[in-house]
């Protein structure tokens, strides 16, 4: 069992390409932490630095209370699951799982016991004598997990392990990995660009961009209180709607003016934070489920033309053009409006997020 600590860690590749400029992060023992971000954000590099597959240019990386900057991967007590599984194609499932233990010269009986234990836990026992090419994608993924499990590592590193699986299998494996974490009670660090995986699996999510941590919080906090425009747009599907608004003051409260429409802001919003923005343009963020499509006759905040209506089953995603800005609205599937119709929209004012247009930081939620 082990915690992981990054202290001012920098990763620069030859040619002076800095991927991670100054990383400070603490991952607690037994925690399931997700590193999430777009391609090239440095999340995989961070994971590979923990694994020891990438050197650290400067700073200190701790696993437990030991600095591991110069410790070989095999001595870090970690195990890694790769995106493409990285199974040894010429070895049977048994040998794939046992290989690390054989290298560590673990006694044969012990290897056999651990391999069978892992195979049983992962439903791999009937396939122990098969080669990886004779397995399905999900089975291969489980072999990769088994290979990591048998080593009883202090830290599990998973690099986009589900991205090669189809949607159905991905959902099943997501649950399986969560169960595995609960059972093993080990530190898990999981890299993904899929925010559904991030939201459903982790105790904590670290959102990264250009090698810099944007926000490090629980999934719920990340969703409800994104710290900047990037996080707000990255977490959530369909993503949060953004609208340029001008802040005005009216009857002791604040309003957001959007193209001739006035949206009353919640009185619970931080007034002191909003005061400097009166008369200025801010970015208003609202999630699709917090925009209600209402009858044209009832009171509403905005109005726009439905361009596309995507039926999702229980609900319908309306893509509404509001004065040149595309807004996505999640409405119940019973909603009558269809493509080409006008839609009246009402915002759940207590769900509005306001961001500084210049710094892109969140000002009030």
């Amino acid at each position, binding site marked *: 069992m082990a915690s992981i600590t990054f202290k001012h860690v920098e990763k620069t590749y030859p040619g002076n390409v800095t991927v991670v400029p100054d990383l400070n992060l603490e991952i607690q023992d037994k925690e399931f932490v997700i590193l999430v971000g777009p391609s090239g954000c440095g999340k995989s590099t961070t994971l590979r630095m923990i694994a*020891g*597959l990438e050197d650290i240019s400067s700073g200190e990386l701790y696993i437990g209370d030991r600095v591991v900057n110069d410790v070989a*991967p095999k001595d870090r007590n970690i*195990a890694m699951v790769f*995106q*493409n599984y990285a199974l040894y194609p*010429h070895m049977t499932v048994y040998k794939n799982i046992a290989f690390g233990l054989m*290298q560590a010269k673990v006694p044969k009986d012990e290897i056999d016991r651990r391999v069978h234990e892992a195979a049983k836990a992962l439903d791999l026992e009937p396939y122990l004598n098969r080669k990886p090419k004779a397995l399905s994608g999900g089975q291969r993924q489980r072999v990769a997990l088994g290979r990591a499990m048998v080593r009883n590592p202090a830290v599990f590193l998973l690099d986009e392990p589900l991205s090669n699986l189809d949607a159905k299998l991905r959902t099943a494996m997501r649950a399986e990995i969560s169960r595995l974490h609960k059972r093993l009670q080990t530190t898990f660090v999981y890299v993904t660009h899929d925010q559904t995986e991030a939201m459903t699996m982790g105790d904590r999510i670290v959102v990264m961009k250009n090698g810099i941590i944007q926000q490090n919080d629980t999934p719920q906090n990340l969703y409800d209180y994104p710290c900047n425009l990037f996080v707000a747009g990255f977490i959530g599907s369909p993503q949060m709607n953004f609208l340029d608004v001008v802040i005005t003051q009216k009857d002791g409260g604040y309003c957001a003016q959007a193209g001739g429409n006035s949206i009353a802001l919640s009185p619970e919003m931080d007034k002191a934070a909003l005061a400097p923005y009166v008369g200025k343009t801010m970015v208003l963020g609202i999630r699709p489920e917090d925009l209600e499509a209402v009858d044209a006759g009832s009171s509403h905040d905005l109005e726009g033309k439905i361009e596309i209506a995507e039926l999702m089953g229980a609900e319908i995603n309306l893509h509404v053009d509001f004065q040149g800005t595309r807004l996505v609205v999640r409405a119940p599937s019973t909603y009558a409006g269809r493509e080409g119709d006008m839609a009246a929209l009402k915002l759940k004012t207590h769900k509005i997020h306001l961001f500084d247009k210049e710094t892109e930081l969140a000002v009030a939620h």
Partner: protein
Amino acid sequence: MKSTASLERSRRTSTILTYVALIFGAVIMVFPFVWMILTSFKTVEESMMVPPIIFPTSLSPANFIKAVTSLPFTNLYLNTILMVLFRVLFAILFSSMAGYAFAKLNFRGKNILFGIVLLQMSLPSQIFIIPQYQMVAKLGMANTIFALVFPGLVSAFGVFFLRQTYMGIPTEIGEAAYLDGCNQWQTFYKVMFPLTGTSVAALTIFTAVFAYGDLMWPLVVNSDLNMMTLSSGLATLRGQFSTDFPTLMAGSLLAMLPMIVLYLIFQRQFVEGIAGTGGK
């Protein structure tokens, strides 16, 4: 629109044309081999007749007996087998290691070194004969098996070919081995090398076929008939003023037998190897 009947007719015509072209090609390719077999049974007179006759008048083994008695065939076979064996072994060993290094390791000057390997591939091998002969002669190794093997110790083609193979193996497999506790050498021989089986088989076949048919170098470096290979030994049957073609052809047929047997055994790998290299 064409009718079904006319479409069927044009498809059949195209099939017939394809077959005619393929049969023509096959006849051209097989003709020298068949001619060699036929000549090996002819008398010297029959082989020189104008216009030439196709079939020998009798199927006498006389030419084969003459070939076997006039050349030390046991030595020639042995020398050839040893030369092929060592050339193949060294080609696999060094090409695999160098190919792996060029594909998977990062070191200073890698691209320049690989450029030199490629440059070597683009030069005709004949220009190396004199310096190679001087080296072997100065080592006092002329007329030995080592002399026959020497130029085949490293194969530029093999290095290039296996580098491409190693480049096709996902880097993560090597990284997984590294995390499993393998050092670089163990990663190479326990994990990476076993994955190159098909390419190594192709390289084996190419190296063996090339070594078996190599004439120039064995002829230059080993002048002692007992240390010659089959190809260079057979070349001694060619006289300055006349050549006993039937005996030469009988000897050639005997020399080809091991390769024909090997080809029949490893036919599938041979074809896969050629297809795999994108070679001719």
